[in-house]
């Protein structure tokens, strides 16, 4: 089952060469909607990284020890989504109880994450590529950090451009997609450094 790729290779590849946002274009909706300010995108990026790392482990366990033995692999989409949603709700409740400041900076983004396709995408890739538990954890963590890196860089650009006179038809989502495209072009530079698929 192990495919022999070291976990740190997977970790760095998930951040740079196979950035989930800039090479797979997953998690685009929240990337476009919440990248107006650096502060909020920092919060969202951190929340996504934590949830990705945790749910990839949970889903790996569920897949390996529940779905495969019971021959229910075809239910994986539903099961993964339910696990992600349940985990996010649980975390939100815990954070709300434990720390108000943490809830203010992180908790408000959690409901947004439940439907972030990047998180489901990470779980499905991990199954397709037959990662081990350790590999899955670092893949989830790396993808989350890569996603956070991209959205924070985008927020910096958009904040700088707040006063720029973008042509009317391109303002908002239009120019953001163009920036994302050029960012992806720049990230092409990393391709071929580490192969993980």
């Amino acid at each position, binding site marked *: 089952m192990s495919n022999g790729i070291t976990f740190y290779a997977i970790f760095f590849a998930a951040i740079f060469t196979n950035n989930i946002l800039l090479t797979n274009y997953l998690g685009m909706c929240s990337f476009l909607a919440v990248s107006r300010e*650096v502060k909020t995108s920092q919060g969202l990026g951190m929340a996504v990284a934590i949830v990705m790392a945790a749910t990839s482990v949970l889903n790996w366990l569920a897949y390996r020890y529940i779905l495969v033995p019971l021959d229910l692999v075809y239910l994986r989409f539903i099961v993964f989504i339910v696990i992600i949603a349940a985990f996010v709700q649980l975390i939100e409740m815990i954070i709300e109880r434990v720390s108000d400041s943490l809830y203010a900076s992180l908790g408000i983004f959690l409901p947004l994450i439940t439907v972030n396709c990047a998180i489901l995408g990470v779980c499905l890739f991990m199954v397709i590529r037959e990662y081990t538990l350790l590999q899955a954890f670092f893949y989830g963590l790396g993808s989350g950090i890569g996603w956070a890196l991209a959205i*924070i*860089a985008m*927020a*910096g*650009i958009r*904040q*700088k*451009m707040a006063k*720029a*006179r*973008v*042509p009317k038809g*391109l303002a908002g989502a239009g*120019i953001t997609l*163009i*920036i994302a495209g*050029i*960012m992806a*072009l*720049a*990230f*092409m*530079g*990393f*391709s*071929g*450094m580490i192969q993980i698929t």
Partner: protein
Amino acid sequence: MAQAAQAEQADESAEIKKKIPAVKWQVPNKRVLYALAPVVVTSIYLFGWRSLLLLIVVSVAAYLTEFVFVRSYYKEPVTSAVFVTAFLFTLSLPPTVPIWIALVGIVFGVAIGKMAFGGFGRNVFNPALTGRAFIYISFGAYMTSSWVEPFKSFPGGFINFLSDATTKATPLAGGAASHLPLFFGNVSGSLGETSAVLLLLGGIYIMVKKAANYRIVLSGVIGMLAFQTVLWAAGVRNALDPLAAATSGGFMLGILFMATDPVSAPGTNKARWIYGALIGVLTVLIRTFSIWKEGVMFAILLGNMFNPILDYYIKQRKTKEDGK
């Protein structure tokens, strides 16, 4: 009444049109063009008159692209920065590139990389490199595989259209790599990237004249040399020796003329040091380990991408310190 008002408006816009000069010349941009002039002449000497033809075609296309946007939308003159973009773009192309590909690249670079962001002074990414990256990835075969040997003796390219001695490899890909030719420029490569000494002189000129910021160049060169030395000493496959790596490929052109573009470079000094070093290190990383032979272009675009956030964090820290 309404008709009169309309006529008045039409008069006014006609008057504005008359007042707009064809090109608004800015001093820093002119200096960059002066610094690039010897490089252009050398590229004709090394590779033939085709490079001048390419430069003219690209400049006209760049001018027209910006013209369409500024005249119809902003009612402003075209700024001279567009010629800097056209020069840098042309000099970064291989001598044999088909002209239509160059046109696609420059139009994409100016329209999407610059005008979509609001025009001069507002672009986040370097327009010349945006255009080049676009055609580099879209038409890889034309951009990376057919190089020509430069002319070696005097009248050289001045009496020829294009050198016809083709070669498959540039020094970066393991062709001839002794230091002296790399320094003076008679090696195969892109039009304007081969002569390290002329680029260096031009670069020093624009740094002295403050058209380019020396911090970016200094930290870029140091970062590049340091990382390259480590890899070379460790005996990594594909790693050239530091001096050859610094003078071959597009590194000199990139770090001196493209990374220092004041619009897409950071605005704070601390961020400039980080930005330069980032470009130097990424260049080595991409050259050595990725599927691409040349990494300067990607490195600068990645640097451009992280500039605003670097500036943001540095400004934020400063206000915090001042607050205390």
